[in-house]
């Protein structure tokens, strides 16, 4: 989701079909749909709730239980093509009219009476432009790039940009770069496990030959690939990642990477390449005094210059 309108992201079928699977929507059926009438199966509101709470309006975004249920009805039938591929390529988004709840639905005070999949598309487009969504996305945006507790003036400014541009994430990124707060030299954030591992890969200048150890490292660092602990995704705060267990494992991983490269790389040159003049004298000294290039590389990978961002 690097650029483009937030509303478009919300509707992108790839994201939606994964959510359908992750949050049970393929099992949800409108009680008055053909399938619901025949089998007595009903709604599962899991995906609808998380769309409102986590991905758009936010938990204080002013929606009610009735809105959750209503959105659940609106997106009944949103699923993906099964393993057997009866309706096309397995895994692709699929609208199952048989399980779709027919009729008018009211969500956040607005009526939706479109046919089939158009109803959900219209609802998502409106939710994505909602003022509460602007606030929520602006806060998460600033928290991710700047600080756990971003300045509220900046969040307001980003929220305003979101509203003015109809949720253009590229405009949001440019507004952030234009803000003086973004140019603070202190590294207040912690690199997440995946950011740390990507950074380590770039420092040694090598793609992993085998994804296994990389994926294993993500697992033990508490950030399994595509497996966040809940639908709210991975944590995005310093406290979540700068913890005893996590740091101990980062040290172990740095040892493994350094063991792989041994004396083939000069860690002082690498420090210059990644940090240049902003590298601290202490880090430079610690690496220079290392008993081997291997140990120096492990120290570089563990240095605040690499662990922080």
């Amino acid at each position, binding site marked *: 989701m690097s650029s483009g309108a937030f509303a478009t992201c919300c509707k992108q079928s790839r994201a939606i079909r994964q959510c359908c699977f992750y949050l049970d929507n393929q099992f949800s059926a409108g009680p008055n749909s053909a399938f619901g009438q025949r089998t007595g199966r009903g709604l*599962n509101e899991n995906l609808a709730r998380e769309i409102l*709470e986590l991905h758009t309006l936010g938990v204080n975004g002013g929606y009610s239980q009735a809105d959750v249920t209503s959105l659940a009805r609106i997106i009944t039938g949103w699923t993906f093509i099964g393993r057997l591929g009866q309706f096309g390529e397995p895994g692709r988004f699929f609208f199952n009219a048989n399980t779709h709840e027919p009729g008018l639905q009211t969500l956040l005070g607005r009526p939706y009476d479109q046919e089939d999949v158009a109803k959900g598309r219209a609802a998502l487009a409106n939710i994505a432009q909602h003022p509460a969504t602007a606030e929520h996305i602006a806060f998460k945006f600033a928290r991710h790039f700047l600080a756990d507790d971003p300045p509220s003036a900046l969040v307001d400014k980003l929220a305003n940009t979101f509203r003015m541009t109809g949720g253009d994430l590229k405009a949001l990124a440019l507004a952030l770069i234009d803000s003086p707060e973004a140019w603070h030299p202190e590294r207040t954030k912690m690199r997440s496990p995946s950011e740390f591992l990507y950074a380590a890969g770039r420092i040694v200048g090598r793609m992993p030959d085998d994804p296994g150890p990389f994926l294993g490292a993500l697992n033990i660092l508490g950030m399994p690939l595509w497996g966040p602990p*809940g639908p709210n995704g991975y944590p995005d705060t310093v406290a979540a990642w700068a913890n*005893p267990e*996590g740091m101990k494992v980062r*040290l172990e*991983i740095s040892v*493994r990477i350094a063991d792989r490269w041994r004396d083939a790389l000069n860690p002082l040159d690498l420090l210059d390449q990644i940090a240049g003049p902003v590298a601290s004298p202490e880090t430079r000294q*610690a690496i220079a005094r290392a008993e081997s290039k291997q140990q120096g590389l492990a120290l570089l990978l563990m*240095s605040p210059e690499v662990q922080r961002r």
Partner: protein
Amino acid sequence: MNFLCETPSPSRRALLATAAGLFAWAYLPKFARAADQRDPRLVVIILRGALDGLSAVAPVGDPDYAGLHGQIALSLSGEGPAIPLDSFFALHPAMPVFARLYRAGQGAIVHAVATSYRERSHFDGQDVLESGFPGPGRVGSGWLNRALSALPRGARIATRGGLGVGPTTPLIMRGAAPVLGWSPQTLPQPTEDLASRVLDLYRHRDPILADVLAQGLAAEKIAAGEMDKTPRGGFATAAGMKQAAQGAARLIAADDGPRVAALAFDGWDTHANEGGATGRLAQLLGGLDGAFEEFERVLGPIWKDTAIVVVTEFGRTARINGTTGTDHGTGTVAFLAGGAIKGGRVIADWPGLKPDQLHESRDLAPTTDLRAVVKGVLADHLGLGGTVLAHSVFPDSTGIEPMAGLIV
């Protein structure tokens, strides 16, 4: 008034024992031991995702239960019969260890319990459960850590700090009191030389990272012991729960180890295909049961001074949904286990399951505030006073009295 009327408790007795000489303050732990052999351990296990209390401890005596829970309802007959606890409640058949503890008077259940949170967001629900504040908000500390901070300075249990199990410290254990983090390890150890060089660099450049790394390295030394180091499948599997329990038990059993631990097990958000006597929830409950067994085994003689409290953010709908699962609800159960627990009973002010008895016509109505249960344990097991509990541990909870008689 509250202070004078509080229940006598180990640390209060300890305080009286040392009143003769204020200079003895620094040596309080020794006196405490002489006055009272108890060296209590407290373990809190969080079940993330919201446990279906009506499936874990089924009200088989309630005429409306079977209808609401439909094809996943437990019963005393048929395949995989539930284990009767009294004339009304029955335990899920995947929990034979807890059933044994219950019969031995070392396991208790509080039913129709909930935090003060009445919405249905996991993340806010867990925030309330762990922060101990009446509502969700962005606070950085948890009630278990604040309970540790509130213990008398120098008390043995306070100086040992807390233990947070898992790759990240759960909110319940974050705060001012020192916390040791530990998680089952799967990679070889770096040399001590390298570790001390990194620590030295951090001490000069990044004190926060210096603290957390030092704690992480110290924890590993204690926990590793003779443990089976095979990688496991995380905290949503029976093997992962068992391994976490084993390491935590070793750490709190160590002479100079922490006395209070927090663990979090995942995977309880059973929206679809929850299962009855067997299936998805049964496997998770079996994992929790295995964790109880592991604590009992590893703690050995210390088990008699141990209290384990198992809590979850909220319950699930009383009626199963369209996908043979349950959606986010309200009232649920809390498990209490350990030699220090006055067990053998289900504590419940049963609200009934008729439509007008359900919370918002959909959830088991909560009749007991979870804070009362936890306060009762903290008061009688760790010796915290009512005032501290009502203000710093669970802010704005003056009206919630500690539940008496949970601890032997």
